[in-house]
């Protein structure tokens, strides 16, 4: 894909930080508000795809390699499974929420009913959200980047 006009690039430069912040907010507040790792990761990955479309795949492939994205995706998957296995070690079963009730590291328990949102709750769920968010960001952007770069031999591509 070739790069697009200056108008598109300028609008992308303005909109990209807000998309990024919104996606990271959805990931980090997954245990309080609707959304989570998958949804926020999809938002961030679509922001990165916007950059890719505006600046062209030849520019993007110089900045980031798909091998690095694969490493980040594998790190997310390993973190997710490690948290589940830590639940098996410190708790009783696979996917046991072993951090809840510990008062540290997102370990508080909120009162019953609708309470004020406290980000220091939910035990292992925010960590799993971060791992899945990293995995989805890297995975979806790797798919989009590689597919965009694969069109370079076609007519109209560069």
């Amino acid at each position: 894909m070739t790069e697009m006009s200056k108008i598109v690039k300028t609008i992308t430069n303005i909109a990209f930080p807000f998309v990024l912040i919104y996606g990271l907010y959805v990931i980090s507040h997954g245990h309080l508000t609707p959304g989570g790792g998958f949804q926020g990761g999809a938002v961030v990955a679509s922001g990165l795809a916007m950059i890719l479309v505006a600046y062209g795949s030849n520019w993007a492939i110089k900045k980031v390699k798909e091998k690095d994205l694969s490493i980040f995706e594998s790190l997310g998957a390993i973190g997710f499974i490690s948290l589940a296995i830590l639940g098996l070690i410190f708790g009783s079963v696979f996917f046991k929420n072993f951090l809840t009730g510990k008062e540290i590291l997102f370990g508080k328990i909120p009162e019953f009913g609708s309470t004020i949102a406290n980000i220091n709750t939910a035990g292992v769920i925010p960590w799993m959200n971060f791992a899945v968010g990293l995995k989805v960001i890297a995975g979806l952007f790797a798919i989009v980047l590689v597919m965009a770069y694969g069109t370079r031999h076609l007519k109209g591509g560069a």
Partner: protein
Amino acid sequence: MFSNRDLFGALFLSVVAGFLIFSIFTIHPFGFPNTPEMDDYIINNCQEETGANNGVTSVVFDYRGMDTLGEATVLFTAVAAVVMLLRRVKKND
């Protein structure tokens, strides 16, 4: 005229459509599930057991974490397949 294949397709389609229309009239009303025991348990206990204010996330990442593991595996497989098929090769291919 219509071939046997067309007639079979129309018959199959009408059977499926009739089944779906029939199921609309026998479905439970919105907001009143047939077996509310599991819903009530999760609504009453998810904050105390998992600490998450968001009940949906407590189900996705705690009660049914194995489902999320499968979902992550599907994504991992998709990324591995796409990167393997469209990876960069040497210039003179």
